[in-house]
């Protein structure tokens, strides 16, 4: 293709001009140190400008590859994030078990808990608005959790496991008309049976308390330790007042320390002596049957 004369002429002039200026700059650079550094500075500025532009072009052309890398990286990070979240939840659970165990030991004392072991469980389901309330927890036979184990928190008793599957267990809540636990009044150590009788989820009754037992408002109610489900001296509630029942027992109204509406994690308690205690109880039962 033949260039138009005007363009041809302009290019020629430019080339001659560029050649002459280059000679001049070379002379300047060779003959003066200050001017040499100045010219080199200018050259470097131009150089860096072109490098920057060329890098921008390279980056733009590499965008497809970069995008693919980013998608892969994103997938990898998502997977890593899921694993980390799982790890955090597990670690938090372990931390919580230690925290709760320490609280219970603080309340009860190490010696009383010598034969007990704890398993942390998360509450999956918790009913509150029926007369036969229950909980489902996320530990089952796979985790060494079985029937007839006590469930509690540092604030008090929650219930007793009445059924266990491989991964989950059914807990009969203290807020169940069929549930009762052995308890005692702190001041006088008067024994009784703690039962929920419906109504408020923060109220229960300590029944069958001997008439000679001194009861005062504010007395703390503890687990008695007479059953194999719970260790003794775990605070359960506070006495609000009492009435005489059938002229034979005192019936103490108790405010429960445990708030069942905010249950998140619970502790399953295993009594190491339970089997032996139960076998001895069985002897008693068989003796009664023979009679």
């Amino acid at each position, binding site marked *: 293709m033949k260039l138009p004369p005007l363009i041809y002429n302009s290019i*020629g*002039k430019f080339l*001659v*001009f560029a050649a*002459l*200026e280059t*000679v*001049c*700059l*070379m*002379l*300047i650079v*060779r*003959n*003066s140190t*200050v*001017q040499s*550094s*100045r*010219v080199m500075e200018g050259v470097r500025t131009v150089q860096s400008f072109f490098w920057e532009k060329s890098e921008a072009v390279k980056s733009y052309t590499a965008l497809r590859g970069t995008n693919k890398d980013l998608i892969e990286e994103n997938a990898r990070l998502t997977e890593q994030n899921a694993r980390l979240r799982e790890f955090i939840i597990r670690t938090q659970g372990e931390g919580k078990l230690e925290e709760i165990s320490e609280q219970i030991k603080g309340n009860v004392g190490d010696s009383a808990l010598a034969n007990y072991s704890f398993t942390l469980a998360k509450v999956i389901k918790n009913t509150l608005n029926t007369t036969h309330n229950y909980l489902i927890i996320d530990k089952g036979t796979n985790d060494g959790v079985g029937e007839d184990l006590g469930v509690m928190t540092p604030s008090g008793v929650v219930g007793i496991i009445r059924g266990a599957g491989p991964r989950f267990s059914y807990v009969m809540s203290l807020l169940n008309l069929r549930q009762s636990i052995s308890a005692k009044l702190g001041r006088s150590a008067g024994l009784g049976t703690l039962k929920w009788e419906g109504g408020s989820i923060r109220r229960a009754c300590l029944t069958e308390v001997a008439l000679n037992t001194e009861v005062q408002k504010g007395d703390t109610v503890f687990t008695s330790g007479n059953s194999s489900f719970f260790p003794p001296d775990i605070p359960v509630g506070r006495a609000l007042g009492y009435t005489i029942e059938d002229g034979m027992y005192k019936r103490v109204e108790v405010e429960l320390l445990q708030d069942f509406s905010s249950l998140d994690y619970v502790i399953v308690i295993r009594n190491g002596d339970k089997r032996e205690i139960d076998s001895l109880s069985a002897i008693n039962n068989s003796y009664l049957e023979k009679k």
Partner: protein
Amino acid sequence: MNTFKYIFGFVVILVLQLLCSEFINLWPILYISVIPLLVILLPPDTSTYLVMLCGFAIGLLTDALSDGILGLNAACCTLLAACRNLITRPMRRYDIQTEEMDLNYGEFRPGKLVMLLLASYLIFFIPYVLIDGPMGKGVLYLSLRIILNVAVNVVIAYLLVRLWIRRFF
């Protein structure tokens, strides 16, 4: 005849420039330069290639004969030579006798001549000051130096053209 006049005028201006460079040091930042006139006053019909080569040669000669940075005047004169057509084009007029666009500096009105000299010296002094100026000086210093050099040299060049050079060209 005309050629002889041009050559004689060039020699005179060149000698004048050398004398200025050697003996007139009014101020370290002020540089008296008359060689841009040599580039501007070349015959209007001279091709740009030749004007650039002439500008380069004149600048280099001045650098070589005076105590300056070799190549500095040459670079500025070459740039001015390359831009010469651009700045003189609006000032040309049609000559009926030769039937060509002519440029007669002797007939320029003062304003037109000042404009031409101003444009020429700006083109000459901007690269000159940028290359020659000491390191680390700010934009204000460089701008003031350019303005001062352009102003002083335009006045000197105007007087030279009006009083003497117009007799030759």
